[in-house]
């Protein structure tokens, strides 16, 4: 059997040369000094292949048009098995790829491995770095949530300020007016159709050049016996790849990548920010403003890229020993400090997002499923400090009974009587009467009767704006005409899925002047103060696309 297999391989090799070609590739001799510091190229290759794979997997359940992109990603995150993991791998894989590519360059830089005759290998590497950043930039838009949308608005605006070519960049990205379907299609096309083949070609060229010139030796290597790439270096590469894979996999499971609200071009409260590795550029624009803006947007980045590409020609010194490369080390430390300083400054000076902008839509969020009356009940629950004496989830037992599954023990009339005069209904109860009106008590009741172990955390997790929005919804009796989560009237349209149908600005205008927005509507105009309006509209925009159970 063994002999037949060997014979088969030999016959195959006779006809294709694959086996001997692979052996020639693997048993390449490498300098004696090679070792753990050279694992980064292999890790980068591994991460790129992982990105190709997870990207293709995501594409299997993804519709690349605005709106649908968002709902399909949400479908991946909430309904497809292992979908959250797949997206986590792709998201964190991108960040790790940037880290590894930079470490790879730092190693090559410190060891002076870009010097003659390896200038070409370095330059192809710099282009690969730029392509990696281009993936980050184009991929950022694809979830089509507010974060994606506003981040891309800023990026394309920066592109438009470039002297001479700016207008053409805008036209190329179709971003002269609002960002819409065309820009989205261009970004998607770049991300999945243009960049991957370019990456593959350049990686092949990069590896070809590495093999052509051999792994860069250090002085003294020629005296020592060479090593074999396989399996000695491959062992080190594999161990390093494995460590990175474990970190990536754990991050994909543990660190939740949020999905914000669907992109809303009228949401003026949103504070755009780019992905962490672009924050330094973002911060630099704050330093250079007014007529100097072009320095931050174009001049410095262009100079930096040119300096990187031309590094082998700027540094023509012979020294390659790491310890003697003080100047190179100094340049590197300065660059790291500059990058780190700008990034930290950007993180510190960017104001926090509003609560409404930070809601994570990537999971089923129990409070979004509540009827308005129940959610309004959360207001009274907090207002009356029910949690001082009662538990709703686990934790140390408190004086009063746990409120989960109240509906299995009591009905509405019992609770109502109990709230009015606790000790009369439950002899010995130390609870004070709840000082609320009838309508208010009914909302608190509605909430209590709804609490189950699955949704008990709503008393903590429901954001204030939504609770206040629901309270206003109840006070103005919106439910007489409109249904929310299957509860309410049928005269007006159901409000589930509003976020997909309208923009915030439209809804606000509609409140102020319904006749103008939808002629012949029986809806009267409403005057709310700014806070109330924002709470109510933000609340309505968090409603699920479809009422639960329908």
């Amino acid at each position, binding site marked *: 059997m063994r002999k037949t297999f060997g014979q088969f391989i030999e016959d195959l090799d006779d006809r294709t040369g694959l086996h001997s070609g692979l052996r020639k590739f693997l048993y390449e001799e490498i300098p004696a000094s090679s070792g753990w510091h050279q694992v980064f190229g292999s890790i980068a290759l591994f991460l790129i292949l992982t990105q190709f794979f997870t990207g293709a997997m995501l594409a299997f359940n993804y519709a690349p048009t605005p709106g649908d992109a968002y709902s399909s990603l949400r479908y991946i995150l909430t309904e497809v098995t292992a979908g959250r993991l797949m997206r986590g791998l792709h998201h964190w894989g991108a960040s790790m790829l940037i880290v590894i590519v930079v470490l790879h360059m730092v190693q090559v830089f410190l060891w002076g491995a870009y010097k003659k005759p390896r200038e070409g290998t370095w330059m192809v590497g710099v282009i690969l770095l730029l392509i990696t950043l281009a993936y980050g930039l184009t991929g950022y838009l694809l979830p089509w949530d507010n974060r994606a949308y506003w981040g891309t608005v800023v990026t394309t605006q920066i592109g438009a300020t470039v002297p001479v070519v700016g207008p053409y960049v805008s036209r190329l990205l179709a971003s002269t007016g609002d960002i819409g379907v065309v820009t989205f299609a261009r970004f998607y096309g770049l991300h999945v159709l243009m960049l991957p083949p370019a990456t593959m070609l350049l990686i092949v060229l990069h590896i070809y050049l590495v093999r052509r010139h051999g792994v860069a030796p250090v002085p003294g290597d020629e005296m020592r016996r060479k090593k074999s790439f396989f399996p000695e270096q491959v062992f080190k590469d*594999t161990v390093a790849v494995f460590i990175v894979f474990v970190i990536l996999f754990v991050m994909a499971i543990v660190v939740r990548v949020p999905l914000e609200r669907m992109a809303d071009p009228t949401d003026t409260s949103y504070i755009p920010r780019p992905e962490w590795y672009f924050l330094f550029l973002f911060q630099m624009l704050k330093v250079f403003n007014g007529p100097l803006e072009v320095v931050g947007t174009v001049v410095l980045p262009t100079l930096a890229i040119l300096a990187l590409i031309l590094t082998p020609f700027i540094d023509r010194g012979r020294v390659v020993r790491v310890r003697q490369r003080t100047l190179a080390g100094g340049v590197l430390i300065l660059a790291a400090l500059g990058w780190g300083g700008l990034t930290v400054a950007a993180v510190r000076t960017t104001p926090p997002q509003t609560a409404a902008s930070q809601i994570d839509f990537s999971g089923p969020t129990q409070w979004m499923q509540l009827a308005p009356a129940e959610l309004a009940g959360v207001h009274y629950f907090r207002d009356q400090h029910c949690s001082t004496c009662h538990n709703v989830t686990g934790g140390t037992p408190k004086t009063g009974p746990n409120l989960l599954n109240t509906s299995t023990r009591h009905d509405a009339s019992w609770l109502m009587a109990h709230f009015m005069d606790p000790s009369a209904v439950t002899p010995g109860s130390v609870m004070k009467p709840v000082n609320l009106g009838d309508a208010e008590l009914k909302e608190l009741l509605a909430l209590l009767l709804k609490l189950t172990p699955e949704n008990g955390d709503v008393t903590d997790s429901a954001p204030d704006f939504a609770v206040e929005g629901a309270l206003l919804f109840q006070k103005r009796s919106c439910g007489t005409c409109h249904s929310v989560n299957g509860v309410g009237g049928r005269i007006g349209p159901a409000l589930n899925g509003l976020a997909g149908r309208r923009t915030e600005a439209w809804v606000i205008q509609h409140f102020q002047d319904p006749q103008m927005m939808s002629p012949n509507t029986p809806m009267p105009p409403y005057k709310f103060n700014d806070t109330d309006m924002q709470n109510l509209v933000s609340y309505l925009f968090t409603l699920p696309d479809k009422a639960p159970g329908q």
Partner: protein
Amino acid sequence: MPVHSAEPEIYGSTRRAFHLAVVYALGGIIALFMAIPTALYLLVPPKPRKESGWIDAGDVSQLAPGVPVELSFQESRLDGWRLVTEKKTAWVVKEQDKKIVAFGPQCTHLACAYHWEMEAGRFICPCHGSNFSIDGKVLAGPAPRPLDRYLTKLVNNRLQIGELKQSNPTA
């Protein structure tokens, strides 16, 4: 075996065997941890959402007994991530005892749309001439079974339409 001689023996065979074992083992673990989620991702059907199944088809209190009416209603269903709303119809008959029956709008022969002929007092399919009585029984033509019926219930005089049940050929 010229191919094997190309391999230079430069370090001990024990270390080499150890290195090879680690490369294959770690490579295998990575492959496994990618393959399992991928299989789950592609092969496990998405979690089904709870569907109530009842669609409101309107007020039927004014319906004249014994006169079939074609009612249309909107059915929403999820197609992957997309909420699809389709217009559907049913032939609704109020029987003499006030019971409401809703027939599926397609002939049981080859799914043509049939209609009610007032003068003939029967449902007639234009395609191959199947005839059905007001209670859906086959009176003539090639139809293999009576008209299919929707599950129905009444809530405050409003007709709620459920699943379409295929009829039994012998009924």
